[in-house]
């Protein structure tokens, strides 16, 4: 059974600083997902990481995947207030029928202060 752990669960940082959110997972996951959620809203897809060594970047966010270490990271560069949100990572398991749904970490509540 896939388990996903994120840390930290809460992060307060200043604008302009860099930081990293970590996502560990327990068993093989062929994909690793990162989502953003604003208060009261649904989940917005940020990245889908497909293979070992995958790195994707969008603006000030960069995600990477190390399948051997079962670790994904979401790095924030020169944070700005607009990035304040809750960030989730998730893995996926497959069975014979198809996709069995995502298993999510608890989420990292990120607050970026001026």
């Amino acid at each position, binding site marked *: 059974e896939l388990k996903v752990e994120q840390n930290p669960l809460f992060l307060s940082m200043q604008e302009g600083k860099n930081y990293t959110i970590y996502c560990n997972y327990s068993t093989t996951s*062929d*994909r690793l*997902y990162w*989502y953003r959620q604003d208060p009261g*809203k*649904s*989940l*917005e*897809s940020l990245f*889908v990481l*497909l293979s070992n060594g995958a790195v994707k970047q969008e603006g000030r966010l960069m995600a990477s995947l190390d399948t051997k270490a079962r670790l994904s990271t979401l790095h924030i560069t020169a944070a700005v207030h607009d990035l304040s949100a809750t960030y*989730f990572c*998730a893995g*996926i398991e*497959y069975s014979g*029928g*198809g*996709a*069995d*749904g*995502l*298993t*999510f*970490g*608890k*989420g990292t509540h990120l607050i970026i202060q001026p």
Partner: protein
Amino acid sequence: DVKVTQSSRYLVKRTGEKVFLECVQDMDHENMFWYRQDPGLGLRLIYFSYDVKMKEKGDIPEGYSVSREKKERFSLILESASTNQTSMYLCASIAGGTYNEQFFGPGTRLTVL
């Protein structure tokens, strides 16, 4: 650019009522999912479906059932709503074969009184 829609954004029901939550996707996806999200517990999978008329239990199926009569529509049913089913319910879909991006609907915030 609508991808996944849910029938209601907010819903208030009474204990014991039968509740239907509807989800429709316009991407011809085979796989559809229902999650609930609660503070401190994160997102948990209730039921999912690989194809029409197929359904599988997720991690927390108790008190729920589902229906998938058409490919684009996946319904979540609370047979007899209880206060502990007050939650945010999120529907999602993903294409078969590629297993790439999973799209989420806007969510339904259900309150059971």
